[in-house]
């Protein structure tokens, strides 16, 4: 996906910017961190790796003042610090880009970026200076954004760029990126790595929290691996290998799932014909047609925000297509309700797990029940028990799925919000797959999920196909599409701009199509080649933008 950059630091190691010494943190009976030591050297990129629930996010939350450690010490520039909240951490020069966006949806990009450190003019916020600042930052770091756009209207990828800009605006000396690439496309990842490299070269200390090995190898200088809240490996990236990192993360080796190929696909199960979504002048989805057959996985590649999500929403029925036809198993469902479409044989694993795929305050059992609550064994579709639920059956079924999908939880009554991202995703997948629906739409099914879980999710999708299911797989990970899909469509600007069979598809060809089809991007890896190049000038002083 990306070519490795000049990761290894040349010259002698610089002084530590941050030291975490013997950090411990418990949540009730769960030990999240246990005696963790971490040294971040100034101007280096330090990857913190681990599977879901390994304690990475907890550790970073303590570093950023969101949580207080139960034991241990945090030192910034050699001096012990105590953060009572993120504001203290920001004042100490830390910046954090969260995995879950913390933005004001109804405000503009510029307002979000400067929030808390606004350029002012005569006591009022200087909106023009703010917009100029955002433009300047986004150009300098290659983070494409529109300062006047309302954040709520942006795609996940674009929102994350706003988050990054926000930290950059505050001139953070220590930048924590929590799973920053989870919602980014390959080309966006490449430019993010350029940003990271430039920032590090300019003296910023970057912490990259991730579980993706190729990212660690591509961009970091040092790696610390966590497992079950303890440090299980420390490497200079130049000396690390995929195998050694996987071993430290999981304690075992991982075989990547490869598409075993299928026989001939069966009848058409999902048919989308000339579907347009949104205002016809600026449609999110523009005249898209596609068909998914039984026993087939069709991949949809594309940079986040190019209409994939809206297409899925239109097929599910949470958004109405403005024109076109959608057929499920031959039945026209374009004007039907979500419930009817699901009843007709549709299951969907949504992209936005917290916003759409779960209700964080409800229990695991309740989360795994929605959609199954009117059918046996929990409910009944006819007879006297119609409309009523058996709580006993609900719990029994939840326990069964928890065991079957290896969900790490204290029990089916635990709120799903308390689970790690990967475990919550397993709940979503268990719920949707257990419909046994002929058509499955999987949107970013492995986003924010650890290596071991990715493998099992991929295997589940392949099993689903083997069982005659039709799968539409929307993913920003080309490697995932190559591993699973029989055919790959590429969406750009709301249109399907390319289609490849599994045999034809390569990272390069898909990447080129994702970047805007034939006319754009001579080679998809051209940007990556630029990545390691040293930057010339450091960022201009932000004050130049702020009119007094």
């Amino acid at each position, binding site marked *: 996906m990306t070519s490795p950059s000049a990761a290894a630091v040349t010259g002698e190691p610089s002084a530590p910017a941050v030291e975490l010494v013997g950090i411990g943190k418990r*949540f009730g009976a769960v030990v999240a961190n246990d005696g963790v030591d971490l040294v971040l050297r100034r101007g280096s990129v330090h990857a913190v790796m681990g599977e879901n629930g390994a304690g990475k996010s907890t550790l970073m939350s303590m570093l950023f003042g969101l949580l207080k450690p139960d034991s241990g010490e945090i030192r910034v520039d050699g001096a012990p610090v105590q953060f009572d909240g993120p504001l203290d951490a920001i004042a100490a020069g830390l910046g954090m880009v969260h995995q*879950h966006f913390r933005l004001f949806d109804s405000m503009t990009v510029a307002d979000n970026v400067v929030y808390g450190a606004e350029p002012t003019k005569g006591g009022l916020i200087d909106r023009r200076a703010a917009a100029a600042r955002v433009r300047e930052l986004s150009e300098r770091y290659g983070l494409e954004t529109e300062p006047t756009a309302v954040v709520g209207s942006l795609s996940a990828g674009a929102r994350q760029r706003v988050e990054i800009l926000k930290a950059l605006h505050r001139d953070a000396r220590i930048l924590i990126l929590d799973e920053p690439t989870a919602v980014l496309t390959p080309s966006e990842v490449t430019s993010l790595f350029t940003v990271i490299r430039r920032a590090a070269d300019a003296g910023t200390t970057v912490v990259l929290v991730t579980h993706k090995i190729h990212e660690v190898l591509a961009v970091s200088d040092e790696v610390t691996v966590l497992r079950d809240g303890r440090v299980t490996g420390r490497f200079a990236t130049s000396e690390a290998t995929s195998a050694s990192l996987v071993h430290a993360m999981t304690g075992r080796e991982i075989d990547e799932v490869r598409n075993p190929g299928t026989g001939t696909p069966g009848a058409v199960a999902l048919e989308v014909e000339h579907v347009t979504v949104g205002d016809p002048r600026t449609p999110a989805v523009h005249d898209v047609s596609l068909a998914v057959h039984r026993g087939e996985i069709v991949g949809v590649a594309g940079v986040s925000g190019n209409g994939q999500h809206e297409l899925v929403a239109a097929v599910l029925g*949470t958004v109405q297509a403005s024109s076109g036809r959608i057929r499920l198993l031959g039945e026209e469902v374009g004007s039907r309700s979500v*419930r009817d479409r699901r009843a007709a044989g549709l299951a969907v694993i949504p992209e936005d797990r917290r*916003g759409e795929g*779960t209700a964080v305050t409800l229990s695991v059992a309740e989360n795994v029940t*929605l959609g199954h609550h009117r059918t046996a064994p929990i409910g009944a579709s006819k007879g006297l028990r119609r409309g009523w*639920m058996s*709580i006993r059956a609900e719990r029994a079924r939840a326990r069964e799925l928890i065991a079957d999908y290896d969900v790490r939880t204290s029990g089916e009554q635990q709120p799903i919000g308390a689970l790690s991202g990967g475990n919550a995703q397993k709940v979503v997948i268990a719920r949707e797959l257990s419909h046994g629906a002929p058509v499955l739409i999987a949107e970013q099914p492995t986003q924010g999920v650890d290596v071991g879980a990715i493998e099992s999710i991929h295997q589940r999708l392949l099993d689903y196909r083997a069982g005659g299911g039709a799968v539409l797989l929307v993913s920003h990970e080309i490697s995932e599409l190559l591993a699973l899909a029989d055919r790959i469509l590429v969406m750009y600007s709301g249109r399907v701009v390319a289609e490849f069979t599994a045999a034809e598809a390569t990272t390069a060809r898909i990447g080129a199509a994702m970047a805007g089809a034939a006319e754009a991007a001579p080679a998809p890896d051209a940007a990556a080649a630029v990545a390691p190049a040293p930057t010339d000038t450091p960022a201009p002083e932000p004050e130049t933008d702020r009119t007094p």
Partner: protein
Amino acid sequence: MTSTPTKPQPRARRLLATALRHPAVVPLGAVVLALLIGAVIIAAAGLDPLTAYAAVLEGSLDPRQLDYTFSVWGFICGMALAAAIPLRMGEFNLGGNGQMVLGGLTAAWVALNVPLPGILLVPLAVLAAAIVSGGFGALSAPLATRFGIPIIISTLLLSPIAVAVVSYLLRFQIGEAGSAVAQTPRLPDEGRMWALGDLSYSNTGLLVIIAMMVAFYVVDSRSAVGFELRVVGANRRFGAYGGVRVGRLAFGAMAAAGAAAGIVGAIIVMSSPYRLIDGALISPGYTFAGLAAALLAGGRPALIPVTAILFTILQVGGASMERSADVPRQLSDVLQGVVIVVLALRTVLDQRRTERSSA
């Protein structure tokens, strides 16, 4: 402050933090805070808070008063239902007054004009009130789904219209001729709620309200619709994605809420003094007390009877506090208000909590 040991302190703090996270802390804290603020106000007026609060308790829990206290508890529970049913799906019904008054008017009209024996007339009047008020409440659902007017707004704004229309009808159309007060004639004996033994305030209406609360509890915890209400209340997008027809659900919830309020109105009218008097349904403030009880219970059906007790005590005891401690009864309204404000803060706390637990 300068306590000595370093080791036990984080542990004690952790215990405290765990204790503070208990779901009962915020509601109880709200009540305690309200009582403290009330005490400060009373003390500032130069009176003794303890005497005043003692008067509240004595007045409401006096065995001779219990009959009356129970009837008020029933009305507050009924209006709490009107707020709690939509609250379960995250909607606020602020139109309880209008729904209740329309129910009262309908029941009065039926009782006065339909010539049936009591065994049929009483259920018919209650049912008619439920239908009219339910329809009125349900009006807010299509306004929200089709025109994007939030339910909290449309209920709030439609309510005074209904109150004004009923007031107009009482004054100029169906009111008792020759009466100085705008009121209907006395309902005939057939159109009155059946008495419970020799109690003078509590009657069969109280049993109807208790039955409604039981029904809400069962539907909430055991039915598919109740499950959908909770799911939508927890995350509306999740519900829509999962196939819940949110518009229909809102319609049903608002209809049920309106019906509950209408039944309360019908019961009040069909109880002593057996007539609909202009303003008499609204002035005791059952709607607001019920809303406060529903909020304090977080919409949970099992807690509503308990939280309603608190507001009943304030409501009933307020009058005797005025008499014996010379503290204006409006103080009960102040206390209710403080409880609601503190509970509004709870939303913020909850949000922080979920963010932290996911961090």
